[in-house]
C-alpha cells in the first residue's frame, strides 16, 4: 500500500496532537502512577505520607527504576470529597494516561476510587483507607489495599487484650464507619476469645467534635474494668486530657487503636498515659537495619523524623514497583493477576500481596505507651505481621463475593 502525501500529513498531525500516546509507546518513558489523597483535608497524615512516597520514588529510580523505566507519580488533592476523587481519577486515566491509580485516606474516598477502578477495569492500589469493605464486601480484582484494615488492627490487639482478664468493658470510638467497624470487631473477637465478657457502655463522639468531659464522665459512670478506644487526632488529645484529670484511666487497662503512631502520640506530649496497649510505630526505638536505613534516608532528605504516614507513602511505591516487576508489564490485566503474591520491601520488613483478597500483609507494631523525658513513646513492642492477623480463608471467601 502506497502512502499518499495526504495520509502522511494526517498521521503527522495525529502524532503531534497526541504526544502522550507517543511517549507511552517508547520503552524509556516513565511508568506513571496517578495518586490521589486528602492532602488539604487530613494534612497531619498526608503531608508526611507525601514525603514518604517522594523518597521512595527517588530511591526506586536511583536503583534503575522498574522494568528499566523510571517511576513518575502525578499527585492530586481530593479535598476529602469522594466526588472530587472520582473526577480526578477520570482525569488521571484519560488525560494524564497513568498506568495505575493509588492513594486514598478516607474510607469513603477509597471506596469511591475503587468503584471507578472496577467500572473502568483499571488497577487501583489503596494505600491508607482502613475499611474492611475495600477488600472484602466491596472487593474486586482490580483493587489492592496496603495497610492493615480495621479488622487486622483489632485482631493484633485482641491477643494481648484478652490477657487483661477484664470482664466489664466500655468502648469509645468516633461515630463513623471506621469507629463502628473497630468496635464491632473488637466485641466479636473478644467474645470469641473470652466468653462471659460484658460491654457495659459505649460512647460515639462525632469525629473532630468530641465533648470530652461528658464522654469521660459517662464512661466512668459505667464503672468499667477496662476501656477500648478508637478515637485519634484532636479528639484523642481532648479525651486523654479529660481522662487524666478525672482519673478515668487509673487502674484500668486501656486498649487503643493507632495511638502509638507518631502523628497521634506526639500531641499527647507529657500527658501520654502509661501502659496503654496500642498499635503504632516506635520510631525512636526500632533498631533493625531496615527501619534504621529508612529513618536515616528520610531524615537526610527532609530533616525530620518520619511518621506513620511516611511509612505508608514509602511502602505504597515499593509495593507497586514490586507488583509491576512481577507482572512484567503495566498492562492492567497483567498487573491485576501479577500483583498477587508479589513480595515487596517496606520500612517494617518484607510484605506481600495476598492472593485470596488482594490485601497487603504490611503489619504494624503493637506495644505499650510510656512517658520518657516528657514525651510519649512505645515500649515492650513487637511487630505484628499482617499475614497472621487475618480471618481464615473460609471466612474471607464468605465475605468477598468475587
Amino acid at each position, binding site marked *: 500500500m502506497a502512502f499518499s502525501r495526504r495520509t502522511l500529513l494526517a498521521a503527522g498531525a495525529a502524532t503531534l496532537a497526541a504526544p502522550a500516546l507517543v511517549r507511552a509507546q517508547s520503552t524509556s518513558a516513565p511508568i506513571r502512577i496517578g495518586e490521589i489523597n486528602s492532602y*488539604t483535608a487530613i*494534612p*497531619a497524615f*498526608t503531608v508526611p505520607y507525601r514525603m514518604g512516597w517522594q523518597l521512595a520514588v527517588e530511591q526506586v529510580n536511583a536503583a534503575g527504576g522498574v522494568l528499566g523505566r523510571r517511576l513518575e507519580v502525578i499527585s*492530586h*488533592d481530593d*479535598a476529602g*470529597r*469522594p*466526588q*472530587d476523587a*472520582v*473526577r*480526578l481519577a477520570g*482525569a488521571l486515566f484519560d488525560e494524564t494516561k497513568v498506568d495505575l491509580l493509588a492513594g486514598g485516606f478516607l*474510607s*469513603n474516598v477509597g*471506596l*469511591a476510587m475503587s*468503584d*471507578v477502578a472496577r*467500572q473502568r477495569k483499571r488497577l487501583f492500589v489503596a494505600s491508607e483507607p482502613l*475499611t474492611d469493605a475495600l477488600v472484602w464486601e*466491596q472487593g474486586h480484582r482490580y483493587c489492592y489495599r496496603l495497610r492493615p484494615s480495621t479488622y487486622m488492627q483489632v485482631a493484633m490487639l485482641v491477643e494481648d487484650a484478652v490477657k487483661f482478664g477484664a470482664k466489664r468493658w466500655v468502648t469509645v470510638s468516633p*461515630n*463513623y*464507619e471506621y469507629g*463502628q467497624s473497630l468496635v464491632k470487631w473488637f466485641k466479636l473477637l473478644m467474645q470469641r476469645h473470652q466468653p462471659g465478657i460484658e460491654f457495659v*457502655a459505649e460512647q460515639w*463522639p*462525632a469525629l*473532630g*467534635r468530641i*465533648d*470530652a*468531659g*461528658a*464522654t469521660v*464522665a*459517662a464512661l*466512668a*459512670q459505667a464503672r468499667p474494668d477496662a476501656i477500648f478506644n478508637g478515637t485519634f*487526632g*484532636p479528639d484523642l*488529645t*481532648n479525651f486523654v*486530657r*479529660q481522662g*487524666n*484529670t*478525672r*482519673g478515668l484511666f487509673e487502674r484500668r487497662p486501656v486498649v487503643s487503636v493507632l495511638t502509638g503512631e507518631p*502523628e497521634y502520640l*506526639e*500531641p*499527647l*506530649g*507529657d*500527658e501520654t498515659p502509661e501502659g496503654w496497649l496500642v498499635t503504632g510505630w516506635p520510631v525512636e526505638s526500632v533498631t533493625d537495619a531496615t527501619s534504621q536505613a529508612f529513618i536515616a534516608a528520610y531524615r537526610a532528605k527532609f530533616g525530620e523524623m518520619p511518621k506513620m504516614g511516611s511509612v505508608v507513602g514509602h511502602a505504597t511505591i515499593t509495593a507497586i514497583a514490586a507488583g509491576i516487576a512481577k507482572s512484567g508489564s503495566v498492562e492492567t490485566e497483567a498487573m491485576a493477576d501479577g500483583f498477587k503474591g508479589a513480595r515487596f520491601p517496606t520500612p517494617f520488613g518484607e510484605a506481600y500481596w495476598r492472593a485470596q483478597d488482594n490485601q497487603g500483609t504490611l503489619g504494624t507494631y503493637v506495644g505499650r505507651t510510656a512517658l520518657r523525658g*516528657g514525651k510519649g513513646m512505645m515500649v515492650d513492642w513487637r511487630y505484628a505481621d499482617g499475614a497472621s492477623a487475618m480471618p481464615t480463608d473460609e471466612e474471607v471467601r464468605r465475605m468477598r463475593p468475587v
Partner: protein
Amino acid sequence: MDLIFLQLLTGLAGASTLFLVAAGLTVIFGVTRVVNFSHGSLYMLGAFIAWSILSRLPREPEYFVLGVLGAALATAVIGALLEVLLLRRIYRAPELLQLLATFGMVLVVQDVALWIWGPVDLSLSRPRWLRGAVEVFGLRFPFYDLVLIVVGPVVLGLLLLLFHRTRWGLLVRAATQDRDMVAALGVDQRVLFTSVFALGAGLAGLGGALALPQGSANLHMDLSVIAEAFVVVVVGGMGSLTGAFLAALLIGVLQAFGIALVPKITLVLVFLVMAAVLVVRPHGLLGKPQAMARGEVEALAPIRPAGPALHVLGLVALVLAILAPFFAGPYLLSVLTEAAVAVLFAASLHVMMGPGGMASFGHAAWFGVGAYAAAFAAKGLGAGMAAGLLLAPFAAGALALLVGAFVVRMSGVYLAMLTLAFAQIAWAVAFQWVEVTGGDNGVLGVWPDAWAADKPTLYWLALLLCVGGALVLRRALFAPFGFALRATRDSALRAEAVGLDAYRLRWVAFGLAGAGAGLSGAVFAYAKGSVFPTYMAIPHSVDALVMVLLGGVQTMAGPIVGAVSFTVLHSWLLMGEFWRIKLGLLIMALVLAFPAGIAGAASAAWERWRGRAP
C-alpha cells in the same frame, strides 16, 4: 445524684466554651448583619496564636492569663483588618454577599495556618495547676473546667456592662436596632463596625485560646466549631447576648446528659434542639423579629426577561455546550457534566433565594435525597436509570414540602438556619442508618444503564435534564406564580392584601426548589457512580450558596454563570498546589469587583453601554 451533679457541671463547662465562641458571632451579626462564616477560622487562629505565645512563656497562672489575652487581642486585630480591607467595601451589596467574602477568608486561613504552624496538632504542656482536679461528692472534676464555668458568665457580665454603661455600647445597641437612623444622627458607622468586628473576632480568639489547654490547636478547629456556634446564636436569638448564653446553657447541658443516655446522638443533638426551638419560637429564645435594614427593599429592581441580545448569547452558549463532546476531552467533559449538575442545583436554590427571598443553608439536603433516591432505585429496587431519575425529583420535592411546611413561616437567617438543621438531620440519618444507606461508606455501583454509559451520552443526558430543569424553573418564575412569589418577598403585607396566599406561594417555591435539587442530585449520582452522605453535608450546601452569590442573586443568569464558573474554577484549581488560598483570594477579589455577582455586573455594564448608545 452525685453523678447527675457532675454531668451538670460538665455541661456547664461545655456551655461556657460554646458561649464564648457564639458571643462574638452574635455581636457581629447584631450590628453589621454579617453572617460571618470565618468566625471558626478566627477561633482557630486564636488557639494557634495562643499556642505560639504560651509555649514561650513561663507556666504560672498570671502568664497564662496574659498569653490568652494576648491571643485574643491579636485575633481582634486580624478581625479589624478583615473588616477594613474586605467587608467595609461590600456593606451596600445585596444581603448575604458578605457571607461569600467570609467563605473566601475560611479557605485562605486554612492554607495560611497550615503554612505557618505545619500539619501536626499542637498541644500545650499543661502545668500542674491546669491539670488539677477538685473533689465533688467524692468524684474528681477538672479545676480548669470550673474556671471555664466562671469565665462564661464573667464575659457575659463584662459585655453587658460594656453595652449598657458606655457610650460606645449605647451606639452599638442603637445600631443593632436601626442602623440607618444611627448613621443619620451623625455617628461614624465605619468606626463602629470596625470596632464591633474587632470585638467579635477578639471573643472568637479568646474562645480558641481558652480551648487550647483542653486539647490541641489543630487545623480542623474552624469547621468543627462554626456550625455549633451558629446554632447557639440562632437558638438564643440573633444579636442577643443573653439569649446566646441561655442557648449555650441549654445545649451544653443537654449534650452532657444526652450522650450519657443516647450515645449515638452526638451527630445531631444540637440540630434537633435548634429545630425544636425554632419550630416553637421562630426567632429563638430571646430574639426579636429582625428589623429590616432600610435600603434593602428598594435595591431590588424586578427581574425582566432577558433582552434579544442576551437570548442570542444564551443560545450560543447552549449550542456550544451541546457541541462540547466533539471538541472537549474526556476530563473537560466530566467537568462540564458536573457544571450542568451545578447549574440546576444553583438554579433551584435561586428560586428560593432570589424571587423567594429565602436563603437556604441546607439546600444540599434535597440534592442528597435525590441522589439516594436514584441509588435505591438502582440498587434496592433494581429499577433502571430512567426510574431513578424520575423518582428523585418527586422524593426530594415531597420531602421538601414536608419540611417546608415548618420552614417557610420564617424569614431571613432563621429560615436559613432551620433549613440547615433539617439538612443536618437528613445527613445524620444517611450517616447512621448503615443497614439502608451504607453509612459513610455510601452506596456504590450506581452506574448508568448501558445506553448512557459512554461519556458524551451521559453528558448530553445531564445537559438535557439539568438545563431543561433550569429552564422549567425559569419559566415558573416568569409565570404569574413567580411574580406573585416576588410580591410576597418585597411586601408580604401588600401581597396578602391583594389576595395572594404568601405562605402557600413560598411553600410551593420551597418544594419546587427541592425537586430541582433532587433531580440534579440523581444525575450527579449516575455521573459519579456512588452516593455518600457528604453530598448533603454543610460544605455542599455552602457550595450552592457560593454559586448563587458569585453569579448574582438578582439576575436570572446569575446562578448559571455562578455554577459554571465555580465548578470550573474549583476543579481547575484543585489540580494545582495551594488551591484553597487561590480560590479564597479569587472569591474575595470577585466579591470586591462584582458586588452584584458576575452576571449582575455584566448586566449593569450592558445597561450602561446601551444607555449611552443612541
